């Protein structure tokens, strides 16, 4: 696939030092591309990191290097008057503000430090500034960059969080296009650690300023020349990765879909401007990581699920819009994916096997057994590869045929109590109804395999089987 329609040179590739290091920020090369993308697009940027990870330094150095008139507010101490100045009634009856050196008027960049420690009423007032560059409904002409920084928010499950650093409101977090985790000391190389230890406060030289302007300009050029094959591919990636993350419990808003798309394009352009040798998949993953608002909300993002969704979505870039695999992967529930995969008879065996195995693994007990019955009753099991079909066959055998096991149990044992519950549940089934035998066998089989630990497990599996079986047969 043609990736970037770039006709620009390769001066950045010859540089050993990244643009952040050139302005005195060491060990941050991993976040250079998303930060550059944020500069080029002017999108709101939020840095999250432990204390002492150079969040504030980074933002102030960048603002200085760009020669911006910027305001640095500590949001935890901020009063609204600090932002807008003192209100005074004008001669024509309108409200005017007495501008102070610290007020936001005329600033090219604002930095809201410690935004997670900000009072909710102030957060609400920051909202339109970050979102639409307005304060009290008045446009902030000249304000291009809206940046913020915070410590990792405290969560109920995390004892190591910062007390006082509250999770951001979901709507506010969603207004930041880029949410970037700061690299920590442990991520630095030994040489970088030494360099940080021996760092000296130095002003930024004109040559480094020129370099930064050049790399920004170069990124803008690349971004403006991205070809449609590439941008369409990224749109497909975004569509799919959002569906896959939703399946993993990470919901993203439609606005985030747009932001993610723009971010990925911009980070790819920035990455090309910095180092053209980095691959599409790696850069896109960096962009994805830098675009998830959950980090600001104190919601954990499981790494395995993130990587798995990314890997699946990046593969889809090559799929046509009519490819059934796209629809299958975009389906929100594992059961729906199985149904679609069974219907898509032209799906290659390897894809059918992978989709089915993944979906089965995500289904709860009861639903999984009903889905396996569906695979056999439709004959779709024959489209699975042998290893997955063999596992399905083992389960199906326990549902459609006798289960033999022998075990000693005490009457006070939880298994005894669970079996008592199963007995009650099975007594409700009508033996004259053929499907009832499947349901009974499935439950007995799960019990025999010790996959039902409590009476509640038994009830859940019992109802899940019936519900799923009905759903699959109705379809």
């Amino acid at each position: 696939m043609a990736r970037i329609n770039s006709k620009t040179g390769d001066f950045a590739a010859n540089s050993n030092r990244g643009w952040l290091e050139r302005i005195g920020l060491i060990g941050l090369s991993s976040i250079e591309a998303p930060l550059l993308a944020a500069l080029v697009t002017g999108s709101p940027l939020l840095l999250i990191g432990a204390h002492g990870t150079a969040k504030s330094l980074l933002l102030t150095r960048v603002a200085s290097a760009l020669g911006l008139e910027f305001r640095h507010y500590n949001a935890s101490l901020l009063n609204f008057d600090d932002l807008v100045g003192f209100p005074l009634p004008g001669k024509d009856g309108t409200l005017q503000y007495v501008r102070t050196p610290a007020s936001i008027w005329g600033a090219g960049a604002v930095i809201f430090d410690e935004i997670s420690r900000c009072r909710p009423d102030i957060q609400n007032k920051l909202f339109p500034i970050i979102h639409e560059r307005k304060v009290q409904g008045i446009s902030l002409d000249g304000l291009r960059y809206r940046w913020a920084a915070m410590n990792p928010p405290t969560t109920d499950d995390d004892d190591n969080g910062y007390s006082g650093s509250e999770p951001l409101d979901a709507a506010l977090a969603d207004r930041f296009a880029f949410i970037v985790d700061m690299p920590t000391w442990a991520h630095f190389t030994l040489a970088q650690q030494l360099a940080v230890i021996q760092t000296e406060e130095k002003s930024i030289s004109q040559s480094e300023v020129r370099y930064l302007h050049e790399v920004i300009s170069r990124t803008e050029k690349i971004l403006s020349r991205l070809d449609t094959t590439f941008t369409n591919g990224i749109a497909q990636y975004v569509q799919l990765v959002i569906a896959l993350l939703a399946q993993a419990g990470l919901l993203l808003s439609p606005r985030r879909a747009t932001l993610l798309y723009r971010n990925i394009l911009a980070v790819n352009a920035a990455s090309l401007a910095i180092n053209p040798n980095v691959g599409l998949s790696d850069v896109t993953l960096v962009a994805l990581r830098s675009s998830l608002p959950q980090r600001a909300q104190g919601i954990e993002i499981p790494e395995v699920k993130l990587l798995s969704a990314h890997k699946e979505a990046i593969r889809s870039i090559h799929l046509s819009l009519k490819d059934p695999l796209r629809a299958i992967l975009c389906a929100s529930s594992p059961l729906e994916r199985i149904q679609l995969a069974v219907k898509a008879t032209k799906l290659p065996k390897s894809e059918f096997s992978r989709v089915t195995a993944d979906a089965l693994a995500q289904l709860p007990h009861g639903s999984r057994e009903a889905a396996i019955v569906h695979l056999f009753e439709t004959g779709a099991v024959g489209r699975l590869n042998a290893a997955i079909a063999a596992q399905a066959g083992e389960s199906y055998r326990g549902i459609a045929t006798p289960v033999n096991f022998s075990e000693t149990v005490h009457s006070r044992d939880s298994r005894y109590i669970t079996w008592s519950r199963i007995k009650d549940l099975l007594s409700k089934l009508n033996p004259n109804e053929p499907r009832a035998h499947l349901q009974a066998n499935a439950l007995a089989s799960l019990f025999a395999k010790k996959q039902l630990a409590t009476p509640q497990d038994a009830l859940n599996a019992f109802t899940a089987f019936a519900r799923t079986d009905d759903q699959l047969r109705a379809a």
Partner: protein
Amino acid sequence: MSDHTSLLHNMSAPPKSVVSYEGLSSGFTIKKLPDGSGHVTNHHSDASLFGTPIRFSLPVGWIGLKPIKILALLNIDLDEGSYDDPSKQLATLINKRAEELSLPEGCAVIATEPSHPILWSDPLATLAITSKCTDTVWLRSKTPSIIAAVQRESISLLVPPRFAIKLPEAKC
């Protein structure tokens, strides 16, 4: 379905139970044993099999046969070019026969019972099953394993009800 609680048991030992399950029709019980010992069992009768079991059986003396011998017993002459590797010719025949069987694309393999009917008695049909089976499933599209094909005397598949109507009448 019934529950039996013993009147006498060793008070120093926690009571134990026998739990049995013989399929939904046959009942499922919990029995408490007087001596405090017991076991849990599940038994399921053929009546509660969901689907139609069918059996495939190799002729006596076929276990462990080499492909060349199998082809000879099938009265099939070796093709030109198959002298070096007759298993390829046998695999082709097996695949062809597998396509002809009116079975679903995949079936569960179940424990063989003499009562399971044999619908296809020709050895090639049996080889088309035994060579394409794992321990739990038969797959029509699986590459046949000639070695595995002659390791089992007989094998039974469970055909789901929807496909059972396409099966021929039992021959024995």
